[in-house]
């Protein structure tokens, strides 16, 4: 779309419109993996990379293949096939190139094919009519925002586990949801920072 700059979109996607804390996408792996910082770092990096790349890829596929051929209604299938193929490709490359990187990241890759956040970022990109540059900014921002949220959550949960007594009913997903809600509240404060005038 028109004149929203690269960095405005990036900043907004990370903070004010965080794809996890505002749009609720990517919750399943978020709740499951955010118990430890190390795993969260790995998953967050993988999600960032895949989201940024596939948003750009899907932009090209959408505007250069689906729209000219009038196949827009097939976008769900096409997007998810692109995401799955890309993840498969990356996994194969990482496995060949670096054993250490594979240990750190590779195991998360199959998990993120069905991460709602990635498909969601592609769908939002289409709905908001972004240009290619804007789509790249949005993909990178969404991935970065998701990674930031899961890292913060892991840090908080690790601290909580060490020191606090959590009511039995809240153990596990319950307390994670409350933390997520509080983080969402905090991130809402960033709204005032985005000014276009």
């Amino acid at each position, binding site marked *: 779309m028109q004149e929203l700059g690269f960095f405005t979109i990036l900043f907004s996607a990370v903070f004010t*419109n965080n794809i996890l804390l505002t749009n609720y996408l990517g919750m399943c792996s978020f709740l499951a993996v955010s118990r430890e910082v190390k795993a969260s770092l790995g998953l967050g990096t993988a999600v960032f990379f895949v989201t940024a790349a596939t948003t750009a890829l899907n932009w090209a596929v959408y505007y250069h293949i689906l729209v000219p051929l009038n196949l827009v209604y097939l976008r769900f*299938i096409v997007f998810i096939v692109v995401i799955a193929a890309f993840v498969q490709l990356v996994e194969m490359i990482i496995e060949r190139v670096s054993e250490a990187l594979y240990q750190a990241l590779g195991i998360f890759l199959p998990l993120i094919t069905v991460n709602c956040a990635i498909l969601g970022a592609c769908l939002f990109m289409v709905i*908001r009519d972004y240009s290619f540059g804007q789509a790249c900014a949005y993909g990178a921002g969404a991935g970065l925002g998701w990674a930031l949220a899961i890292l913060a959550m892991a840090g908080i949960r690790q601290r909580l586990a060490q020191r606090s007594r959590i009511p039995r009913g809240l153990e596990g997903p319950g307390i994670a949801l409350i933390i997520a809600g509080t983080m969402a509240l905090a991130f809402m404060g960033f709204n005032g920072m985005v000014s276009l005038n």
Partner: protein
Amino acid sequence: MTARMREGLRTAGFMFALTLVVITCVSALQLATAERVSRNAALFLQRAVMEVAGVPVPDDPAAVASWFQRSVAAEPAAAPTRFSVRDLESGALRAQVFTCQGRGLWGLITAVVGVDPATRSFRQIRFLDQNETPGLGARITEAWFMRQIEGKTGPFVLKPEGTRSAAPTEIDGITGATITSAAVRDMLNGVLSEARKGKEAAK
């Protein structure tokens, strides 16, 4: 042909067949409903134009379509930005409806605005497309917001939400949605200057 090749071929064949079946089913459904979808889109625009012109909207879509065809002149014909709504019996101009666009926080906001031709005051605004944050910017679609411009002449300045001032140049913004509110204000002021231009051209 080795067993591995045979299995590979079988896998590829299965995927191909499945994909074909899925795409056929989906495409069939799409073709069957395509006309309905475009009719819905046209109906949406027609209803919005009627509402901002201050005309009561009938429930029956066919009635809406026929009324629209007889009473509304759209110009330019290809991608209309201005609608002149005339009274069926007398032919007098009932309202002028303008489409306008603004830059919201997340994307383009598209709306139609109705203007009373005699008093040059606004009737209502209806949003055709917006991607604003639900619960914040998206509140511009709430009934009170869309109705508050009725009778006012602008040019507008924003006041805090809840002011509900009666002054003809003041409208309430939405708390927490500064950019969206400012975009709507600019859209309305833009329509005002375009309406003035039209009036002068008619003279």
